[in-house]
């Protein structure tokens, strides 16, 4: 019992023995290689296929339905060896002769688009043929991906990069040999052969000494080198496969993040941290969509390039030169546009940090008291519960930022006061001043208690331009302050006679003397 394979030659259906099928494919491959630089190559191949069909047809009868190796060889004798197709203008090349011999040996499966059975471009059919699964699997996969947008991009990249299986040789290659242990061994050997040939060719160009060294390799050594070369090739193919998977995943992730990014304006709190951070520093004249478009363009270019390279070098997809140029052009242009927008944004952002300005407010404290308690409390302003926990908090169109610092100093006058200095940067002094003016902070005075909110807030449109608030408690000599534990993260460079490190000052009672602030008690009295 023999397995047969159906092929379509010149529009006719033939059943071929497996070995006959291999040989026909190898033959057409070699002919194509011979004719690839001849004008009208496709037409010539079509003529040859039609003639091949006619020759096969002559052998068929009701008693003989299947074309075997002997019929194929007879047909090849009639048509001639691939070298004979030279047209007297192009001489048969060593490359052709070699590839024909090679192709006779076996036919490795290549990735082509199944243009005949495809719904759109045959990408799914081709992938299915390559991985020996039902095309429906890939079609469903792409349809699912389509909803996120990634499938659309991936499909078009693959469509552009993978050549369609148009000739019989390509169709045969598309459904080529199964991957068996034997085939892997064969492919290892062949890969090694090819590598060796390449090395030797290179050596010939470089220097005769290297050439001698290459050809002087002992049999055993050479076998090892070949085996290693083959293994490397297989490893690369596996890496390539995972790289493609990774790219697909990255693409999907990017699209998901991007689409979330676009809908972000309606719901701040659902956004990703990176998005929130980018949003807070973006140049004020630019919207988030511009940044996203730039990012997508830049990443897309890289994805296109890597995908094409992986397809070419690990899956041996024979990308036509014209497509290759198109792919390169698109990739470079896309990345370039993205990067240029990034650079412009970066420069603009930098310029918006150029000048600094401050806004000062002195809040008098109630007279008659000499003992104070300084506490930092969660901001009384409305903070959403599920905020972005990166120090910056978004709420509606306001930005919340924990940019506060606490200090204690001696008052030159006899009354205590709390001075709030708000700083901001901007593209010019006026801008900086306006941004500082718009910063809101939260101070609550009640009896001896001074409560400072842990967050300042400013309009999101102001962007983060170094806004911060410094609260300095001016105490006359003889006044004391208890620094609550909650102050520990915010005390900043507070001069004290004990030279105590800021965070440790919290939770202690301090007294203002002529010499400066001094530790009065380890706890509240």
């Amino acid at each position, binding site marked *: 019992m023999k397995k047969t394979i159906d092929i379509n030659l010149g529009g006719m259906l033939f059943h071929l023995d497996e070995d006959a099928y291999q040989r026909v494919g190898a033959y057409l491959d070699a002919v194509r290689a011979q004719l690839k630089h001849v*004008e009208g190559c496709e037409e010539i191949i079509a*003529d040859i296929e039609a*003639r091949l069909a006619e020759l096969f047809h002559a052998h068929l009868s009701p008693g003989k339905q299947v074309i075997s190796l002997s019929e194929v060889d007879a047909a090849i*004798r009639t048509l001639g060896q691939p070298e*004979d*197709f030279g*047209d*007297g203008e192009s001489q048969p090349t060593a490359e052709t002769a070699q590839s024909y011999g090679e192709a006779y040996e076996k036919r490795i499966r290549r990735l082509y688009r199944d243009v005949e059975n495809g719904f759109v471009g045959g990408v799914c059919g081709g992938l299915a043929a390559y991985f020996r699964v039902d095309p429906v699997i890939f079609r469903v996969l792409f349809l699912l991906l389509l909803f996120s947008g990634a499938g659309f991009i991936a499909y078009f990249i693959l469509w552009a990069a993978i050549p369609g299986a148009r000739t019989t040789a390509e169709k045969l290659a598309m459904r080529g040999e199964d991957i068996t242990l034997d085939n892997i061994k064969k492919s290892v050997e062949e890969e090694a052969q090819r590598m060796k040939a390449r090395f030797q060719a290179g050596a010939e160009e470089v220097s005769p000494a290297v050439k001698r060294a290459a050809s002087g390799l002992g049999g055993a050594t050479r076998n090892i080198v070949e085996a290693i070369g083959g293994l490397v090739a297989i490893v690369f193919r596996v890496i390539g496969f995972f790289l493609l998977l990774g790219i697909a995943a990255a693409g999907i992730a990017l699209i998901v993040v991007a689409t979330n990014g676009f809908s972000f304006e309606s719901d701040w709190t659902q956004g990703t941290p990176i998005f929130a951070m980018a949003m807070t520093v973006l140049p004020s004249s630019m919207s988030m969509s511009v940044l996203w478009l730039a990012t997508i363009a830049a990443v897309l270019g890289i994805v296109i390039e890597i995908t094409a390279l992986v397809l070419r070098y690990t899956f041996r997809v024979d990308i036509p030169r014209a497509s290759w140029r198109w792919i390169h052009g698109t990739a470079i242009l896309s990345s370039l546009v993205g990067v240029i927008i990034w650079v412009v944004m970066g420069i603009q952002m930098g310029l918006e940090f150029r000048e600094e300005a401050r806004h000062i407010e002195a809040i008098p404290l109630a007279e008659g008291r000499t003992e104070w308690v300084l506490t930092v409390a969660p901001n009384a302003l409305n903070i959403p519960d599920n905020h972005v926990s990166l120090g910056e908090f978004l709420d509606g169109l306001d930005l919340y930022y924990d940019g506060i610092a606490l200090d204690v100093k001696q008052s030159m006058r006899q009354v205590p006061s709390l001075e709030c200095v708000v700083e901001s940067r901007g593209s010019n002094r006026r801008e900086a001043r306006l941004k500082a003016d718009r910063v809101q902070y939260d101070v609550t005075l009640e009896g001896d208690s001074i409560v400072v909110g842990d967050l300042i807030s400013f309009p999101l449109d102001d962007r983060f331009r170094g806004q911060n608030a410094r609260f300095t408690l001016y105490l006359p000599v003889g006044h004391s302050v208890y620094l609550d534990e909650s102050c520990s993260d915010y005390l900043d460079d507070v001069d004290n006679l004990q030279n105590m490190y800021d965070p440790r000052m919290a939770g202690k009672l301090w007294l203002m003397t002529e010499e400066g602030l001094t530790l009065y008690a380890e706890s509240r009295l």
Partner: protein
Amino acid sequence: MCCIVPNINYIFANMNTENARAQMRKGVLELCVLRVVRKGEAYTSDLSEALKQADLLVVEGTLYPLLTRLKNAGWLDYRWEESKSGPPRKYYKLTENGERLLDALDQEWNAFVNAVNSL
């Protein structure tokens, strides 16, 4: 055809080198194809049959690129014809340009043969 074959055979008989023979075949193949087509519309295998009988062609394969080239140059034209024994066939015929070219080539060939024979 009748005037070429003896000449070619004469040359070949005396050269007896396969390589030179192949080179010469290649050189005159274009002329031969055009001459066969002048006799009437021809299908590729008709052409190859005629040329093989005249010992001017070894394998069919050589013809396909040549025919496409001649067609693209505007010297040959073809029409499709359904076939019972396979896919539709291309039947080639000479165009007006082709006829003129062939006349010129015939003259060239005769001059060439005379020149060679006169040595």
